[in-house]
């Protein structure tokens, strides 16, 4: 899956470690994962970093800056864009989530 390439392969986990974690978590039910997350234990199982260099977005946006979500089912292209936007940019210039760039 190409989205994995957005992960930093050096820190805090290798790409292989993340793949292994996803594979392991995929064997668990959603309620179990919810419990692990709520207990603050998910970092032990999913060694993913959001990246410390990302700028924090502003607190507020004007209404015209919001790109409202569609309540209808997404097509394949829209789904892919949504997944891509969930991963932090490795570099603000190199990668900007499409769904966020319009805001």
């Amino acid at each position, binding site marked *: 899956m190409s989205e994995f390439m957005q992960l930093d392969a050096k820190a805090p986990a290798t790409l292989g470690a993340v793949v292994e974690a996803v594979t392991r978590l995929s064997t668990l039910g959603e309620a179990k994962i*919810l419990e692990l997350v709520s207990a603050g234990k998910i970092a032990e199982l999913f060694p993913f970093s959001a990246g410390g260099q990302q700028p924090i977005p502003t607190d*507020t946006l004007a209404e015209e800056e919001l790109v409202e979500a569609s309540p209808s089912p997404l097509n394949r292209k829209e789904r892919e864009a949504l997944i891509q936007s969930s991963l932090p940019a490795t570099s603000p210039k190199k990668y900007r989530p499409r769904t966020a760039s319009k805001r």
Partner: protein
Amino acid sequence: MPRPFIRSAPSKVDKRRRVDIRMTHMAAGDALWWDTRLGSKHASMAARADRYWSWSVLLPLCHLVQRAKRRHCRPLVIWARTDSGRFLRVGMLIVIEAYPYLEIEHPAESHFVWFMSGADAGVLTTEFGMSNPPALGRVLLDSAIVLSQNAGLAGRIGLHAAAAGGEGLLAVYNRLGLIRLPGTAALPASVRRPNDGRFFYADEPVAEALAAALDVSR
């Protein structure tokens, strides 16, 4: 014609007042903002089931884990208008699409509300200039019901109340009108977990009733 999302909700402070609401898809920046600006404050609130949640981790995790299960996630951000007229993030929601319906006597698909959080109303007022923070429980559930209806799943949804939320969280979902799955009920085979009595769902009539009650706010 798809049913739209809600565009206003009552204020928690003054139920007669309406607060403008908007929905966007959740991107990494939204998760980072929430973790940094709100999560740090929620972490000290022992009663919150989400006090340890890191949305920056949850967001990619949910997509990746569900992709591995051949399903998709719809992560949404709920925004509300502040006193300045601009919009602030006040709620977060991750829905799994086409999840097994919890009521196994009627095999079908539903949407599963995996993670949802509403910002603490006190924090919104004191830290972010929002005199009228919106009541978010119905907004969060309605978003999942609308997605389910528009996807052809008749509004069927399910969720699991995190154990960290205790009895209080069970009371919240009861009050919001969801049906509690009996603790003795079997779960769909692909839900790999014993039933701990903390699963809730909305069937078609309940979903439609909940959605219809909010149609004036769309």
